[in-house]
C-alpha cells in the first residue's frame, strides 16, 4: 500500500468533508461533499475493492450529489443561507470523535499487518450476489423500487 497516496487521499477527503460540513454556500458544500466521496472511493481502490470504489463514484457522485444539487436549486427560493451555527453540535461531535479514537487506540488486536495482494474480482462479487446474497439482493431491489415510488409520491403536487 502506497503511504504517500494514502496520506494525500486522507488529507483530501477529510478537508473536503470539513468543507462540506462548514461552508456557508450550500452549493459549495454539496460540491465539497462530492469531492469527499471521491476520496472515500479512492480509499476503496487503495484497499483492493475496486468494484466498490466504482460503485461509490457512480452512485454517490453520479447520482446522490447531483440529486442534492438539484434539490438545492429547487428549494433555494426564499431561503436565507446565512444562518447561525449550532456550537453544541460541534462539542458533541468532538466528544464522539475523542471517544472513538480512544476506543481504537486501546484495542491492540487491531494492529495486524495486511496480507499482500488481496483483491476481490467483479466475478467473485457477481457470483456472491447470485448465490449467497440473492435474497438480500432481491430485498434491496424491492427497497429501491419502494423508495422510487415513495419519492415520486412525496414530490407529486398535492391535489387541490
Amino acid at each position: 500500500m502506497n503511504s504517500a497516496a494514502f496520506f494525500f487521499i486522507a488529507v483530501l477527503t477529510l478537508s473536503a468533508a470539513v468543507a462540506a460540513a462548514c461552508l456557508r454556500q450550500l452549493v459549495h458544500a454539496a460540491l465539497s461533499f462530492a469531492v469527499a466521496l471521491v476520496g472515500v472511493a479512492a480509499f476503496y481502490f487503495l484497499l483492493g475493492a475496486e468494484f466498490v470504489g466504482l460503485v461509490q463514484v457512480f452512485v454517490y457522485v453520479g447520482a446522490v450529489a447531483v440529486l442534492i444539487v438539484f434539490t438545492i436549486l429547487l428549494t433555494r427560493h426564499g431561503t436565507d443561507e446565512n444562518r447561525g451555527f449550532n456550537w453544541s453540535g460541534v462539542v458533541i461531535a468532538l466528544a464522539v470523535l475523542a471517544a472513538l479514537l480512544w476506543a481504537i487506540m486501546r484495542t491492540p488486536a487491531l494492529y495486524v499487518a495486511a496480507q499482500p495482494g488481496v483483491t476481490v474480482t467483479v466475478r467473485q462479487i457477481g457470483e456472491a450476489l447470485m448465490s449467497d446474497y440473492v435474497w438480500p439482493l432481491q430485498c434491496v431491489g424491492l427497497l429501491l423500487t419502494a423508495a422510487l415510488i415513495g419519492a415520486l409520491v412525496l414530490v407529486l403536487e398535492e391535489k387541490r
Partner: protein
Amino acid sequence: MMTPTLPTFLMISAALFCIGLLAALSRRHAIFILIGIEMMLAAAGLNFIAFWRFGPQPAPPIGVMVTIFAIAIAAAEAAVGLALVIAVYRHYRTTDVDQVDQLKG
C-alpha cells in the same frame, strides 16, 4: 512515512463519521443534515472494507457485499430524504429544520 494500518483507516473513518455528525447536528438547513447522514454511512462503508482487507485471508467478501448493499440503501435514503425536503419546502416554504417542529410536545 508509515505504512497505513488498520487503526489509521479506522481513525480516518471515525473522523469522517464525526464530521458527518457535526454537519447533521449543527447546520440548520435540511440538506446539510442529509449530507451529514450520507457521510456517516460512507464512513461505515469504509470501516467494512478496511476490516475485510485486514481480516484473515482468504475470506468470503462479506465486507465488500455489505458495503455494496449499504451504498444501495444510502441511495434509496437520499432519494426519499431529498423528496421529503422538497415536500416540506412546498408545505412550509422553508428548509430550516428549526421551523419544522410540528411534533413538539
